[in-house]
């Protein structure tokens, strides 16, 4: 871990302004991912802006009948909230499928969206990684590399990393909106589908946030009802990232929404694929995973995603 300076700003706008002003600054919330990455010198901020204590830790009801979640609401608090459990059970199920109780107690809503990939080449500073060190190459795409866990769609020749979050997959299925404050003190709204970027030639750019911009809330629209399930598939029964996860909202008429985790650099969903839901898992996946470019080691994720959804459609 490199030495860094530290400050606690007075309010969110001041935090954003300071983050834009100091080059190499990072926000610290729960720290469950940032601190690990700093110890390994994957993240090397020179200045840490601690946003804990800025409020932003409440869940309030919106005029549209939805909920507005403060960015510092912990994963534990969010998943346990009675309104979330009643009206957005998908979110509770997704959060509970991730990490461990201890981590969820510390991890925050905004921080969860911003966590970095667990690609082993990103995590080993001896290895090339375009995300960690732009231009150094993708360690996972060389001959003989280990890519079983990595992405099959939305990836590029520069990066095949996945976004590791379970919560974000549910947020995508629920059409959440990310609210921010910019360094200039303005507020901004970013639909979740536009929040995470695909890698293209610039895998180091992971979100639509501008330098210094701070997430303040994540807003959920009015409840969509239906049956909501989250099936996370992994080799061991707990404490592992998804090989494939499927978030499903299914209405009684057979319509609904499907989002995937573990397959792409962002939660993976499309309107066109949602429309195929009444036609079954195969129809959905042939649209949703159209254009997939798996490696030999992770091609099974295509089959696995379809079969996982098939199981859920039968159960739903």
């Amino acid at each position: 871990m490199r030495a860094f300076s530290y400050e606690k700003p007075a309010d969110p706008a001041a935090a954003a302004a300071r983050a834009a002003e100091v080059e190499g600054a990072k926000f610290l919330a729960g720290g469950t991912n940032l601190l690990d990455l700093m110890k390994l010198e994957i993240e090397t901020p020179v200045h840490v802006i601690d946003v804990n204590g800025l409020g932003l830790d409440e869940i309030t009801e919106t005029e549209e009948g939805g909920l507005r979640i403060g960015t510092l609401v912990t994963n534990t608090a969010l998943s346990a909230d009675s309104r979330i459990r009643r009206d957005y059970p998908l979110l509770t199920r997704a959060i509970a499928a991730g990490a461990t109780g201890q981590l969820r107690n510390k991890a925050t809503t905004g921080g969860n969206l911003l966590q970095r990939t667990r690609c082993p080449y990103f995590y080993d500073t001896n290895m090339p990684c375009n995300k960690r060190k732009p231009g150094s190459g993708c360690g996972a795409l060389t001959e003989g590399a280990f890519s079983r866990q990595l992405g099959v769609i939305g990836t590029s020749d520069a990066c095949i990393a996945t976004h590791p979050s379970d919560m974000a997959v549910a947020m995508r299925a629920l059409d959440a909106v990310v609210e921010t404050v910019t360094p200039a003190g303005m507020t901004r709204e970013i639909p979740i589908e536009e929040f995470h970027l695909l890698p293209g030639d610039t895998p180091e750019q992971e979100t639509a946030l501008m330098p210094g911009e701070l997430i303040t809330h994540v807003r959920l629209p009015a409840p969509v009802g239906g049956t909501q399930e989250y099936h996370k598939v992994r080799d061991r029964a707990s404490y592992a990232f998804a090989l494939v996860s499927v978030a499903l909202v299914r209405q009684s008429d057979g319509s609904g929404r499907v989002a995937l985790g573990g397959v792409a650099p962002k939660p993976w969903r499309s309107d066109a694929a949602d429309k195929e839901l009444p036609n079954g898992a195969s129809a959905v996946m042939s649209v949703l995973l159209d254009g997939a470019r798996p490696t030999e080691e992770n091609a099974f994720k295509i089959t696995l995603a379809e079969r996982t959804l098939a199981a859920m459609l039968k159960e739903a």
Partner: protein
Amino acid sequence: MKFTQPVDSNLFDDAKVVGKPMQRIDGPLKVTGTAPYAYERNDAAPDALYGYPLGAAIGHGRITRMDAEAARSAPGVRAVVTTLEIDPLEKGINNVARLFGGAEVQHYHQAIAVVVADTFEQARAASALIEVDYEEGTPADLDLDAAFERMQGTGEPDTLVGDVEAAFRDAPHVIDQMYHTPAESHTMMEPHASTVDWSDGEDMTVWTSNQMINVNLKSIAATFGIDRERIRVESPYVGGGFGSKLWLRADAVLAALGSRAAGVPVKLALPRPMVMNNTTHRSATVQRIRLAARADGHLTGIWHEAAAYCLPGGRGENPTAQTPIFYAGDTRRVKNHVVDMPLPETADMRAPGEASGLMALEIAMDEMAEALDMDPVQFRIINDTQVDPANPDIPFSDRHFVECLERGAEAFGWSKRNTTPGEQRDGDWLIGHGVAGAYRGALVLPSGARAILDGGKLIIETDMTDIGTGSYTILAQTAAETMGMDVADVEMRLANSAFPASSGSGGQFGAPSSASGVYAACMALRDKIAGNLGIEDASFNGGRVTGGDTDMALSEINEEVSTEDAIQWGDFQKDYAMGTFGAHFVEVGVHAYTGETRVRRMLAVCDAGRIINPITARSQVIGGMVMGVGAALSEDMALDRGRGFFANHDMANYEVAVHADIPEQEVIFLDTLDGVATPLKAKGVGELGLCGVAAAIANGLYNATGIRVRDYPLTMDKFIDRLPAI
């Protein structure tokens, strides 16, 4: 004491302490966090500074330049030692790669520098400032399958009995399959760690986490070229080893070099991401197994050929270890090839040989039972042997494998299982049941101890370690039994090189060997006490010594009485085959859509002679069963074949079983006694619990789905395309 003939009756026959369930005596220290582990020896070395290692960034090659100036001038740094500054150190016992010194890089994360600083964070930060240039070695062929293809049929067989080709030609039933087991990491909870005081470059004290103190002592002496008398090694508590801490490792070497350079005691733990490539692991294996059988189920041919890898000069893994001896069979050919590969060092991991060998052989046995249309329990029973099949004059000392299978089948409800694969469901889950045989050798080693009677207290000193296995407890039980005393009056002092050399912990030889050593020392103490008192035929009971006219409490003996002895093993044991035996039964659920596989219940039946303490023995067996679940379903060191290193080198990506993976586990110990094995008629059991578990799960997966998976781990990517259509 020399063990010169099979023991008939002795004091353990009416044991009051040995064989009784007893909670581990070091338990309170551990649950209160007060057991002093190697990295936390603030009691012994309160002024220790922090060492941090740097590992090589390439698979193999040479270092052409190192620049540590920035590290040396970083805040808090007291010393930096780079590998280019010293000649290659001598290797310790059973080390294959050198642990430090010189420009050659033999494997990824091989230690190339150590930084000593006032704080852990300063040492870690400074280590990242060291600049290293490399010249990468020629890319190596790391394809074990290709190596097996090349070597198959070459070399003298390790075991050859009869005309195996003819047997296969003539047999009505033959199977011939390839099996793969992956590289596995010990992944013990406590990483390799040492605190070393070599401040003056003269005498050295090493507080470490190690399984074999005497071997460690000799290795340190060889590594640094100093007399053993000037070194003290202590390892009173070890947070798991599984073979990873049998031999000297880089943590102690780097802490010693750092201590000498900085002139202060230094403590150093290997960072978790370095453990898998810096230390040792179990080699992956490729195995071809051919079985031939008559229609009545008798095996007429067993042909097992395998390959594993290691660095030049290493031992690899021998997955054929059990094949010469586990089952009867008229003919047999066994051969293991060890292929040189520039990968991290392969060495012993829990049940080296049998663990990976039975993963394959016990699937093959299941396949042959199916080919014969025979119950796999019955098929194994038919092929039991009471003699070494290659040397029929050599009987097993004590073998109750058949009883393990029969007792297990009864307790598990084996007869009630569905026998047609793929036909039992519980909702979306396909349910299956599997069985596998378990075998692990019963090695014993010489082991010494000192017994001291002092004011009614018995003190036992031996360099035996307790790696979480229960040594403190079972040795105290053995000593108390032998002396006719209460366990509460026994003080155990372990794992210090100042004490008599023991077997150490490994190969499931630790408990039988060291308990026999403690027995020897206590018998010598009895003789000495009796001699001092002039008693013939003294008996020791209830804390008293009686005989002739004497009947006195041991607490009334005012003079300290001390003896030292060791158990030595007589040649008569070579007239016997000694082993431990078991049977594993599992119920497995396989998700019909996703292929997720979870174990739903587990039973082990173990035949390992007298069980000294059913609580600690059970803990060992269920721990082995947990390791077997990991081996079956998730553990896999992922080799980057281009770069020659294991990419998933942390506990997030190398998936051992977690609590949610483990169902109710049942263990049955057969009430057996092996008077050939040890004076206690006891054998080890710590590795038996692992042997065969993974194959039972693989066989259960087959019974659940009708899909035979011969490559571990049994992850869905290997069979999802063969699951029922959706």
